[in-house]
Structures are given as structure tokens and as C-alpha cells.
């Protein structure tokens, strides 16, 4: 599949996938409530963000900036 923007990786082991996407030339960020290795890009409560997205008020990475295909 074609990836035009950034890949957002959530929860545990998201850093592992993030790093491999970046090595393959695909921009990527990870999100987790933990930052055990000091490499998490976004230390955030994903459970709360999911609740917000479900309720219609999701933050940027759960709201596409343009229609997806």
C-alpha cells in the first residue's frame, strides 16, 4: 500500500515499528503512556484519546487532515 504521510504507531512495541519505518524512509511517530527507554515521541494517555475520538472530538492523529482513499 502507498503511504503518503506519516505512520503513527500506538501502544507497546510501537517504538520498534516506528524505528523500522523510519529506516525504510517512511516518517513515523510513536505514542504510548510509558517512556521506559526515553524514546517515545508522544507520551500520552491513548485510552483517553480513544474515548475522545469515539465521542467525536479526537485529536490530530485520529482525525485525517484530508480525505483518505
Amino acid at each position, binding site marked *: 500500500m502507498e503511504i503518503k504521510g506519516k505512520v503513527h504507531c500506538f501502544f507497546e512495541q510501537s517504538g520498534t515499528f516506528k524505528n523500522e519505518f523510519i529506516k*525504510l524512509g517512511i516518517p513515523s511517530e510513536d505514542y504510548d503512556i510509558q517512556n521506559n527507554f526515553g524514546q517515545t515521541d508522544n507520551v500520552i494517555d491513548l485510552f483517553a484519546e480513544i474515548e475522545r475520538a469515539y465521542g467525536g472530538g479526537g485529536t490530530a492523529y485520529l482525525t485525517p487532515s484530508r480525505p483518505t482513499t
Partner: protein
Amino acid sequence: MERLDKRTAFHKLLYKLLFAVYDKGLRMIIENPATEPNYLITGQNFPKPTIIDKNRMLRGDYFKKPTAYWFVNCNPTNGRTIQNDKKQKIIDKCKSSPVAGLCSEERSMISPDYARNFICDFIIGKIQKNSQCYLEF
């Protein structure tokens, strides 16, 4: 009871995430163990997984650990990288989580090699040095 409550709470969150993704037309890939018993694959009214990797060691991981993947609003590519170069780790011999209902970090570990091979085989369709050719019908 604590484990049961946690499992129910996590399932509800997963359904809410699925709804948000479907509603907004986003593409998402979910990963979850496919070992039995499995509460997503057999016990819940949940979509069937798109693919199940039955032996992660063949793509460079430390665990055999059958793993299911759900591709939401997208389809996997069809690659097959062979990299079976790790000494096997056994889930039961890894450290347990101190919290009931949660997997320990050691048990959840995915090798960078596996992550790369998964991305190349199933997400971007990139042929690598160890990619295998096979017939498609």
C-alpha cells in the same frame, strides 16, 4: 475478577477505536496474539483477522508466537521474507507482568528484524534480499 474487568475494559476501548477509525476512514493495522484461547478471534463478535502469522521466527523474531493482524480500511501486500536466525525464546519462561491481565515487556517484545520484515512483506510490498518468490493463483 480484576483480570476479567480489565479484559472487558480493553475490549470496549478496542471497539471504540475501531468505530473511530471506520467513522473517519483511517487505515489501521491491529496486532494481537493468536494463541488459544483467544478472546478476539473465537470469543467475541469481532471481525476475523486478515492474516495470522503462525511462526514469527521465520521472519526474524525470537518467539514463534502465532500473531493475528487485522487490516482496517486497507489490504496487506503479499510478501514472504525468510529470516530464521534467532535462538528461540519461550513465552512461559519469560518474566510475568506484575499487573494482572497485562503482558510483560519481555513477552511482548518484537525484534526489529521481524518489524522490518513485516512492514516489507505486508505493508509496503518491498522485496528484500531474503524475499522468496512463490506462485499466485
